[in-house]
């Protein structure tokens, strides 16, 4: 059997879902013969390859870069997993939706700065007016709620997906926690 290709992607999240993935500890190594991690903050690939079997996506869509990235991922991944509440609902990042982007930028770079107050824009992404969950932008195949989903949940999800089955999430995790 050829190895499944796995990608893990980080949009607007806190990395906690990735930490929960690492919290599988030795189980990550135990599963590793079954997959090749082709793109992830943990490895050195700079480009998302064309054919990814499973893509785990942490975080919500909050900038033009995120939007571009998630569309690219969708076009290259067979199974796209929304991992964690930020990806599934918008969660914490979406809390900024009740404020205009300008107010955010003003607070951080004008009001709470002492020198050279200005809004940074050079070679930087543009924040979207509204932060959105992943499925508002592209089709999502599997939703795994939790903030973050526990390591046990992620382990079960991965194991099932690598075995070619769709995991029963309701039995594994719930929102928040």
């Amino acid at each position, binding site marked *: 059997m050829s190895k499944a290709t796995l990608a893990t*992607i*980080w949009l607007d*999240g*806190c*990395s*906690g*879902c*990735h*930490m*929960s993935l*690492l*919290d599988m*500890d*030795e189980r990550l*190594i135990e599963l*590793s013969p079954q997959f090749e*991690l*082709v*793109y992830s*903050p*943990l*490895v*050195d*690939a*700079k*480009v998302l*390859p064309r054919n990814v079997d499973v893509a785990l996506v942490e*975080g919500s869509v*909050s*900038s033009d*870069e*995120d939007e*571009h*990235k998630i569309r690219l991922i969708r076009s290259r991944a067979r199974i796209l997993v929304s991992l964690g509440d930020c990806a599934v609902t918008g969660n*914490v*990042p979406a*809390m*900024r939706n*009740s*404020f205009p982007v300008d107010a*955010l*930028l003003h*607070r*951080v*770079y004008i009001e*709470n*700065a*002492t*020198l*050279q*107050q*200005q809004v*940074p824009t050079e*070679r*930087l*992404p543009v*924040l979207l007016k509204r932060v959105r969950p992943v499925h508002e932008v592209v089709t999502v195949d599997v939703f795994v709620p939790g*903030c*973050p989903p526990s*390591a046990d949940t992620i382990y079960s999800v991965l194991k099932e997906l690598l075995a070619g089955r769709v995991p029963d999430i309701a039995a594994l995790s719930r929102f928040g926690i």
Partner: protein
Amino acid sequence: MGKTITIDPITRIEGHAKITLQLDDQGEVSEAYFHTTQLRGFEKFVEGRPYYEMPYLMERICGICPVSHLLASAKACDALLAMKVPPAAGKLRRILELAQLIQSHALSFFYLSSPDFLMGMDADPKERNIFGVVAKHPELGHGGIRLRQFGQQVIETLAGKRVHPGWVVPGGVNEPLSVEKRDKLLADIPEVIEIAQKALTWFKRELESFREEIRTFANFPSLFMGLVTVDERAGFYEGKIRFTDSLGNIVADKLEAAQYQEYLGEAVEPFTFMKFPYYKPLGYPDGIYRVGPLARLNLVDNCGTPLAQQEWVEFRSLERNAVLSSFHYHYARLIEILFAIEHIQEYLLDPIITKKQARYTASLNNLEGVGCCEAPRGTLIHHYRVDEQGLITWANLIIATGHNNLAMNRGILQAARHFVRSDKLTEGMLNRVEAVIRAFDPCLSCSTHADGHMPLHLRLVSPDGKLLDELRRTP
């Protein structure tokens, strides 16, 4: 006009960022920029929310060091209530902070950076990761996984959950530690001490082969800043702010974190969402300083726990005064892991630790509060203002990684000038520039965001438009 090289995204760091190297007409690197590309806006969107929500909301700034945000936030709330916490709670919070230090440093050292040491800076990028490390150097690889697991298990045992635990509340913690749990934690200590010591022994031997990196990875004089306790140890949960210089002299001491605005300024540059804190008396950018493991070991005259103390003495003998190479952040991180394990043991053995009284209550007494602690990456400050109802009206956060922003930018320029030969680019050259950033272990989810649809694709074009060299990093 010269050309630019973009390294995007920087990999094996905690977050997403990119580097631009600007070349002059001679093809020499003239400028280097470290771009962090996210803004999340916590400082604004917490407005209108009750203060007691802050610890749980603020820890979601970062999944790598949630405990530091949890504690800085809870301490800011303690200040709003004008209260102290029970003695047991103070120690329990300290253990939590040190446990996180262990897991976070283990992540940085073993999962993210050790591939560079064990597989080599020029190794095949496909192998240069934790899986490669475990396959080729099982003892160190598994040891690293175990150390991180230990830190997370301590957090889980105390606080119920590994990432984003509750438990810490304004006024203390909401459940005392049972004797059974304490004993379970104590039982693991000898094993992890041994792992940490072995890693140190191995790494010290390796240092020889990284002379060039040690010399050029952000190796320059700067100030160092961090918390120091009343008994002159590096403070993680408590202490006052000290600045020292590269000669080891104390520049400023016993500064109250709550008065940070008097001595810290924050400048903005157009190319990054991360601000640039600086030491006000020296101005910008001369007020450059470093924080985190290297700074903490440079700030004090003793380490405080027996095994770590021996290592500290050896570390400080690397240079006559302060240790200046940022490559040694890695070394300092291993010493701090050892220190944290020993220190956790000390706290667990203190009979106070299982006392039942773990929380006091009070109502709002102040309309402004500052909370500060040392996150794994350096000093973290949360500053809130609330109205009479306890709803947040304003917040400012100074994030550990931010303090190192000036040093990281200067550091990649130094390394790029040394390693990048623009007439013949290699992947290893660029990996070294990235490795400078890894040494600082920036936690970019704290201040940044995902970026990276532009692959690493370098094209070097001569002034007449001829393609001189090209390099792609593909999976």
